[in-house]
């Protein structure tokens, strides 16, 4: 029982990331009708926003202390981040919380990137075949990831969560297990709560605002919305920006869990596509549900007990589920009739 609960918890953070990326994919696909192979790159760009913010606020002022000499006879270097010398203890706090702080920077950056992508490239592909959309965004994904590679290098850049959240919570005690049975790192808990909040925010935005209503109407029937005199193309840019922000935030907060490197985007993109297919193309709740479901399934598959029976199952479980779903229920778990049929 405790093992099962632990695996469910373990799957939640990864599932959260899948759900967030798949949500953006579905949103863009549902409204704009574009299959965005560069969506994973947005996730990666978000993660590198966190890296950049960390590097920027970590800039150090180097002063030489002529009174102290190192064993090599050179003056001792005193390194102090500028932010600490300016803000004192607050500076330390900001440095410590650099990952959450990056969110503030990531939101505008991702909006700008999303706008540039949509206005500069994607908008010319609304009327072109899906194959060409796939190919051009695929090319874009390569370009983005190569740029990141040249800038930040090919090695993963580990980011640390805030000190206070580095330990693990003994969640099991709260629900009546013995201490030490179910231990769960705080940051993963934070990630799950964060992704749940973002997902809730996006759904609330779509359900409660007029803009969201138009977007939902556009997902259901783009043509009719256009006939009603609503210029839906204008909203597309915003929807794309929203999807970019969601993917970017997913990336920012994921950095302490997985050190970002340039190809993390594509790794997650492939899985998120599978998530979208399993959840049902064009269904937002489907994308979210399938994201968490597959995340949890994956963590179950990586249990040693399971792996000893079926070696390697953790690597392929998601694809196997996708295959089974497509054979049994080709439309996906919550897919609607008429959306991308064929």
């Amino acid at each position: 029982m405790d093992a099962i609960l632990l695996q469910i918890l373990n799957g939640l953070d990864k599932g959260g990331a899948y759900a967030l990326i798949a949500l953006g994919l579905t949103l863009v696909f549902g409204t704009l009708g574009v299959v965005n192979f560069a969506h994973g790159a947005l996730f990666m760009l978000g993660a590198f926003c966190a890296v950049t913010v960390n590097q920027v606020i970590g800039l150090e002022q180097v002063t030489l202390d002529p009174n102290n000499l190192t064993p090599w006879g050179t003056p001792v270097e005193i390194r102090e981040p500028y932010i600490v010398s300016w803000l004192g203890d607050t500076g330390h706090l900001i440095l410590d919380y650099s990952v959450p702080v990056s969110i503030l920077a990531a939101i505008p950056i991702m909006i700008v990137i999303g706008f540039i992508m949509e206005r500069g490239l994607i908008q010319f592909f609304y009327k072109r075949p899906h194959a060409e959309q796939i190919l051009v965004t695929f090319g874009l994904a390569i370009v983005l990831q190569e740029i990141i590679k040249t800038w930040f290098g090919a090695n993963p850049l580990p980011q640390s969560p805030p000190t206070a959240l580095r330990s693990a919570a003994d969640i099991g005690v709260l629900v009546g297990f013995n201490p030490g049975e179910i231990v769960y790192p705080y940051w993963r808990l934070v990630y799950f709560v964060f992704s749940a909040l973002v997902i809730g925010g996006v759904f609330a935005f779509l359900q409660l605002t007029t803009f969201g209503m138009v977007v939902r109407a556009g997902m259901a029937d783009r043509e009719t919305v256009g006939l009603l005199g609503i210029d839906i193309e204008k909203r597309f840019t915003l929807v794309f920006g929203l999807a970019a922000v969601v993917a970017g935030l997913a990336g920012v907060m994921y950095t302490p869990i997985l050190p970002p490197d340039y190809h993390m985007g594509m790794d997650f993109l492939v899985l998120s596509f599978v998530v979208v297919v399993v959840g049902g193309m064009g269904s937002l709740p489907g994308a979210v549900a399938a994201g968490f479901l597959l995340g949890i399934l994956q963590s179950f598959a990586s249990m040693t007990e399971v792996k000893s029976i079926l070696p390697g199952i953790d690597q392929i479980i998601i694809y196997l589920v996708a295959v089974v779903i497509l054979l049994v229920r080709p439309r996906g778990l919550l897919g609607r009739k008429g959306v991308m049929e064929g």
Partner: protein
Amino acid sequence: MTTPLATARSDLILFGAFTLAVLTMPIWLVPLGAGYPDLMQKFAIYGLFAIGFNILFGLTGYLSFGHAAFLGVGSYTAVWSFKLLGMNPVPALLLAILLSGLFAWVIGFVSLRRTGIYFSILTLAFAQMCYNLAYSVLTPITNGETGLRVLNSDPRALDHLTGQGVVDGPLVSNIFGLEMNGLPGFYFCAVWLLIGMYVSIRIFRSPFGLMLRAIKTNQTRLNYTGISTRPYALTAFVISGMYAGLAGALLCVTDPLAGAERMQWTASGEVVLMTILGGAGTLLGPVIGAGLIKYSENIFSAFHEQTLHDIFGFLPDGVEGVVVSVAGLFVGEGWHLTLGLLFMVIVIFLPGGLTSGVRQLVQMARRSSGGSGRSGGDAGTAPQAAE
């Protein structure tokens, strides 16, 4: 575009010209700086890969993003055949074709249940799955990150039968003593390229090929006429998988080493790019695209800072530094950046590929020169435009 109704004679001329061009490659590629066997082998092998991919994508319109998986399967099969049977490439190639065809059948059987983007996503997922497996669980078969290579201690049953069991130095695949490197290696690949091209021409002209085109044009209508399209699409998928397996095996014939990185999604993307660069759905386009990509990869990757300084040496010092550092992003290690940009540029401006670009240019030239002379010029060119 090549019409399905083209005469047998024009095909023969096309194939004859292609054969001549391929066989004389060691001569006419010399002035281009590409006349050495290693590179020409790559031209032939990736040309074969692209021809096979074109049979699926160019004819049926199914965009597979997982063809690198078959390339990898072919490579691993070939190396295993070297290890167990011996260094003769023929059984290796046949086994590779067989096994990759089998893989393609399984993957195609599932993937072809969906069309459009679903299909692309499924093939991509399968390829990633193969890649992950090759790196992790299947390490006993694939030797993981190190890559699979032939060792002197391997059984190589046939070699021992024919008395070639003990070899000094590195093992090279050979046909009865003729080693498959250098020019013989190239001609060996070239022969397979020619066979592949011939089969591709035959498929293009066959009723089967016509059916594949019909799938691309309007699958729904075909279904309404009472034709089940899936067997046709599956056959095309298996055939193109076999081509990929053959190409993968040939890669190992010239260099008996198979690694999982051959199955990565970038490799799948590369063959898509080759095909659309040359022109999907045309006979020669994919080979031309493959040649261009491999040629520019060879040129661009070889560049480094010093060559750039030499090239831009005529510029003033300050400007030169900037130009070199910008250009440096695109060459050497940054070749993939160029590849990605090329990808986007081709899809945005020339989705029909180079062959369609050339055709448009020819048409424009014909119209501007002949338009004033002949009164019925437009009417005369119209049927051609509709090809």
